[in-house]
Every structure is written in structure tokens, then in C-alpha cells.
């Protein structure tokens, strides 16, 4: 494949960690100069070593440095960056930053400002999707017409979720499974809304029992061509944080899959969407509803790359450069099964508390269909300054069963010492019968807390650990060497 002709020769990456490394890899393949910004706590990070140019930025906190759009834009201009890739998180969905980048004559690798603004406003986005005839969860908003509120809510049918309009964090929310109890729930929710938020207005929507989180990757170019790259299942979550993602979803029939993917492409087309984006749906009881659209590259994009053979970052760069998509929907194929597991610096058995340490040993698993996107390097400190994600383990195999086996092997062969991680937890999820059966939903980990704590290590492993520890510990070996073998052979010898 020849290199595309692009109107810029360098890209500044306004991000850090594994995604910065991931983007540099593609920039190199495209023959583009890579520039990264970094806060000093990231000085030993692999992206800083890999990039053609690394520029230090400062901030009140490390995170604040990466959120400082003015500073990063100044750096981009000084470094004569032709384009800017925001990665995910940080400034990636900040419309005013995207506008400032474009105004500075730098190509923003992402959608137009209008699309970021539309999809960034959840209520506007939902209304836009509904207006264009795509499915949103049936709902009744009290302030639309207070006198008919209950009537409109009843018309949706049970189960219903009653929530304060001003709400958040689950406060004041009520699930109503019997419509006779709707009025009581409304009274209670209103009183809680007034108490917590000083606002008694309510909002009622269809409650989806044990929903799946299914999202669809889309790509749109500047000419208005839009394709979808199939779905990703991201239901394995803890505290709304995705842990394991896969494609295809084990929960959809072929017909449902076509329908949800076509819906996502339709939403992107209606929005005149340009670049890579993800349309998220809530799926349950045979129905799916629009949740939100993320106007950026997603953490879990590699599973889509594994099954479609596309490089999403390369597609993003070409689209941002004004080039048309080189394929149509019929030419997008998805083959085999891909799973991604996120390695986090956290302790699942201590309520997912963050862990810290230093990377003392690091060895990645290798093999056909195994990909590691990592943001850590030997010697680097793991702190709580950032999101705890360290690396992603991605596998591709002909079938889901084979992909699960391969993912567990890859996790087992991933040597990461010096900081406690969630690796064993990932392995337990992949080995869980419900996961293996594909029977997951967003409450799966909450309903199965034993997966987080795990069982006791068996005696054989314990013996092996103690043997290695004893043989590596100087005073223990010295004590052994100091005693003649004759004495040592007597059991129960004491000093």
C-alpha cells in the first residue's frame, strides 16, 4: 500500500500513555513526523522515547497540563505541527479546543466542531436522533406538559425509571415495575429531588432490565460517505468503566446486528459526521436505544481493527486530510472474533482501589493474533496522577471460544512486576461460565462480586512462591549455607 499524499507532514499528539504510542506507530507508517507533549511525570513513558519530538508541558497537576488547550496549542504552533490528534479523553471532545486548533491553521484529527457540540449535549443529541426517526428510549419529560406527565408515562408501559431532571449519581431514582405504584414513586422521587437538588422536576423513561452496552464504530469522510465497521460489546464494566470489550457481540442475532449497525450509520449520516465516531446503544429485551455518540477514537478501537483489518488512526488522518474513504460498506468485512482486556493499576479485591509502584519487570506476550497496546516502560513509576489504565491486551482468533483461550494465555504470559494490577481479575472474568456463555450485561460484575475477590491460591502455587522467595532472599540463603547439611537434615531443627 502506497503512502497517501497528505497536506501536512507532522502531527502533534495531545495525549499520553498507550494511545500516544498507538498513534505514533501509525504516523510512522504514514511517513509523518510525530510530536508529543508530556508532563514531567511522564518523562520515562514510552511515547516520549518513541516520538520524533517530545515537548514538555506544565500544569498545576499532571492532568491539568494535558487539559491545558492554550498551552498545547502554543506548543503545536511553535513546533509547526500540521495536524493535531487529540486521542481519547482530555481535550478530544472539547469543541472550543477543536475550534481554536482549526483557527490556528492546524488540522484537527476529528469531527467538525458542530458534530462535537451536537453530540456533547446529551439532551440535544437524543432529540436529534429521535427527530431523525432513530430509536431512543421512550420517555416522558415533565416540563414538556406537566398536566399530562403521568398519563404520558403510563403510555410508555412498565418497567419505568423515574428520575429527577436535575439528578445524578442515582439519587432519587425509582424503578417502577407495577404501574399502580407509579404515583407513589413519583411522589417519593420528587421529594428526594427537592431535597438533594432543590429541584422536584422529574423525567421518566423506559427501564431496560440487565441491559447490554453495544456500540458501533462509524467512519465518515468530507464527501459525505459514511460506513459502519460493525459493533463492539462493552457490557463488562465496573463503576461505568469498561474492562473487557469484544466484537462481534455474543448477544445479537445476525439480523439485530445488521439493524443496529445500519442505525448507527444512519445517525452519523444524518449528523453529517466526519472522521471516526462511535454510536453507543443500550440493548435489552430485543430492543435497542440510542445512548450517546462519542466523537473521537475509543479506547477499545483495536478489536474493530483486528476483525476488519483496518487501521482506524490511518483512516482518521486521511479523512482529516480531506481524502475520501477508499472503500464502501459492502467492502467492509468483519472476520473472526476479537477481545480486548484492559490492564489497570488497581486492586479488584480492595474495592478497585488504585495501586502504585514502579515497573520492575515487563515482558509482553507474543504470538499470532496477539497485540499489546502499552503505555508503560521498564523503570517508570505508576502513580495515581492519571487514569489507572496501563495497557490493553488484544487478541484475534477464528471463534469466540478460541479468542477467550488466547486472551487468557496472553494475560498469563504478560509479565508485569512492581505494581499490583487487575490481571488475575481479567483472567477470572474470561474463565467465568457466564462470560463464556456470553450472558453478560452492565450489572454482571456487580451481581457476581466473587469474581473481583477471587479464591485462595492453592498450596502448590504457595509452595512455589515461597521457594522462589526463599532462594532469592539473601539472609534466608545465608542461614542455610551457614548450617552444615547434616544438621539441616534433622527435621524441626531450631536455632
Amino acid at each position, binding site marked *: 500500500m502506497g503512502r497517501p499524499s497528505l497536506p501536512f507532514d507532522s502531527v502533534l499528539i495531545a495525549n499520553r500513555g498507550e494511545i500516544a504510542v498507538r498513534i505514533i506507530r501509525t504516523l510512522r507508517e504514514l511517513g509523518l513526523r510525530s510530536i508529543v507533549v508530556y508532563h514531567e511525570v511522564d518523562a520515562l513513558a514510552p511515547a516520549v522515547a518513541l516520538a520524533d519530538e517530545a515537548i514538555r508541558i506544565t500544569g498545576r497537576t499532571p492532568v491539568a497540563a494535558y487539559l491545558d488547550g492554550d498551552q498545547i496549542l502554543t506548543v503545536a504552533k511553535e513546533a509547526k505541527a500540521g495536524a493535531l490528534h487529540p486521542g481519547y479523553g482530555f481535550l478530544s471532545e472539547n469543541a472550543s479546543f477543536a475550534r481554536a486548533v482549526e483557527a490556528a491553521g492546524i488540522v484537527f484529527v476529528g469531527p467538525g466542531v458542530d458534530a462535537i457540540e451536537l453530540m456533547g449535549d446529551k439532551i440535544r443529541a437524543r432529540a436529534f436522533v429521535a427527530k431523525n426517526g432513530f430509536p431512543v428510549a421512550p420517555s416522558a419529560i415533565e416540563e414538556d406538559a406537566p398536566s399530562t406527565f403521568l398519563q404520558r408515562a403510563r403510555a410508555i408501559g412498565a418497567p419505568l425509571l423515574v428520575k429527577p431532571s436535575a439528578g445524578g449519581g442515582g439519587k432519587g431514582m425509582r424503578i417502577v415495575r407495577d404501574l399502580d405504584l407509579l404515583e407513589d414513586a413519583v411522589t417519593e422521587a420528587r421529594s428526594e429531588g427537592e431535597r438533594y437538588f432543590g429541584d422536584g422536576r422529574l423525567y421518566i423513561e423506559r427501564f431496560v432490565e440487565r441491559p447490554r452496552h453495544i456500540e458501533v464504530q462509524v467512519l465518515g469522510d468530507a464527501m459525505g460517505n459514511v460506513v459502519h465497521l460493525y459493533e463492539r460489546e462493552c457490557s463488562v464494566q465496573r463503576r461505568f468503566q469498561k474492562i473487557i470489550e469484544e466484537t462481534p457481540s455474543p448477544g445479537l442475532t445476525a439480523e439485530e446486528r445488521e439493524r443496529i449497525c445500519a442505525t448507527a450509520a444512519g445517525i452519523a449520516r444524518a449528523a453529517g459526521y466526519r472522521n471516526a465516531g462511535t454510536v453507543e446503544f443500550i440493548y435489552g429485551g430485543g430492543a435497542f436505544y440510542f445512548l450517546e455518540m462519542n466523537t473521537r477514537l475509543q479506547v477499545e478501537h483495536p478489536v474493530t481493527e483486528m476483525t476488519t483489518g483496518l487501521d482506524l488512526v490511518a483512516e482518521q488522518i486521511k479523512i482529516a486530510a480531506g481524502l475520501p474513504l477508499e472503500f464502501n460498506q459492502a467492502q467492509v468485512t468483519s472476520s473472526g472474533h476479537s477481545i480486548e482486556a484492559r490492564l489497570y493499576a488497581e486492586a479488584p479485591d*480492595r474495592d478497585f*482501589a*488504585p*495501586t*502504585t*509502584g*514502579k515497573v*520492575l*519487570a515487563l*515482558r509482553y506476550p507474543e504470538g499470532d493474533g496477539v497485540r499489546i497496546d502499552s503505555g508503560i516502560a521498564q523503570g517508570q513509576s505508576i*502513580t*495515581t*496522577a492519571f487514569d489507572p489504565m496501563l495497557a490493553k491486551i488484544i487478541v484475534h482468533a477464528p471463534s469466540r471460544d478460541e479468542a477467550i483461550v488466547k486472551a487468557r494465555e496472553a*494475560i*498469563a*504470559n504478560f*509479565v*508485569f*512486576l*512492581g505494581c*499490583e*494490577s487487575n*490481571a*488475575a481479575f481479567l*483472567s477470572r472474568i474470561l474463565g467465568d461460565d457466564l462470560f463464556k456463555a456470553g450472558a453478560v450485561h452492565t450489572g454482571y460484575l456487580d451481581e457476581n462480586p466473587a469474581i473481583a475477590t477471587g479464591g485462595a491460591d492453592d*498450596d502448590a*502455587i*504457595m*509452595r*512455589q*512462591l*515461597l*521457594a*522462589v*522467595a*526463599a*532462594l*532469592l*532472599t539473601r*539472609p*534466608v*540463603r545465608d*542461614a*542455610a*549455607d551457614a*548450617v*552444615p*547439611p547434616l544438621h*539441616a*537434615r534433622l*527435621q524441626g*531443627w*531450631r*536455632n
Partner: protein
Amino acid sequence: MYHRFDLDGKANGVWLSRLGNGYQLQVEGGWHGAVALAEDRPGQGHLTIDGERVPVAYALDGDVIHIHCGGRAYALHYVDPLAAFARAGDDSGLNVARAPMPGVVVAVKVAPGDEVLAGTVLMVIESMKLETSIRAPQDGIVEKIHVKAGDSFDRDALLATLLQENG
């Protein structure tokens, strides 16, 4: 007296002794057998235990032995008997406040010499984007504050030490 290695808060006693040219491990209250560790390259090798060969990777960090074994990582703490004895008196009881999780100090609320009651807020820390109060574990006088606002610390770090009035 056995050597002590702690794993996940649980103490394990072992005794290592010579056995011919190699070593024998005795686990307190249980198994014993021949063990050998062959290093293939730094930090990586094979443990032979009871005739079985197990691939292992390891890294030492002070008294902590990090081991990758059986498909996952473990951290064992070697507890030096003298250090454990010395600490038992003053450092592990109710007169210290330790960090329940890694984080950053937001504000220190007391100063050395202050009299505090059990439950008095000593400082406020931030961890996992949440603010948490660190409280005095018992009545006493603040002897030392080991951190200042803005400092980051690891789990179990010593944050404050109290003097017991009737100590």
C-alpha cells in the same frame, strides 16, 4: 525460628537448608522438599520443586520479592525478624495513622502538640477523585505529621504519629 514472608497480609514461615549441593525448603506446619532456581537470564528462570519445572520471573525491591508464577504476579514481603521486633512496639498500633490507599494530601488539620480525641480529623486526602478524612485512631497528642499539603503517598504510608497521654 522460621523466616517470614507475608503475602496478602498473611504470614508464612519457611526454613531453607542445604541438601547435598542444593537446597531443601520446609514450610511451617507442612510441606518440605528439594528446591532449585536456575536463572535463564536476569529476572527470569525455572524453579525446580519436587522434580517439577516451573517457569518464573522475578524482581527484587528491597524486602519485597515480586514473582510472576502460574500466570500471575505476586508480591511477597520478607519480614526481617529484628525489624519486625523493633517495629512491634510503636509503629504498628493505634498511635499511627496510615494511608488506606494511595493519594494526595489536600489539607493538614492539626499540628504537632495538638491534643486530639479519637475520631478527630487529622488531615484530608484525595484518592480516586474522592476526598477522605484521616481521623485519629485514639485519643492522644499529635507527635509528628509526616506529610504536607500537596504531597502524594502510597498505600500504607505513615501519615501521622500520636503520643498516648497515658502511654
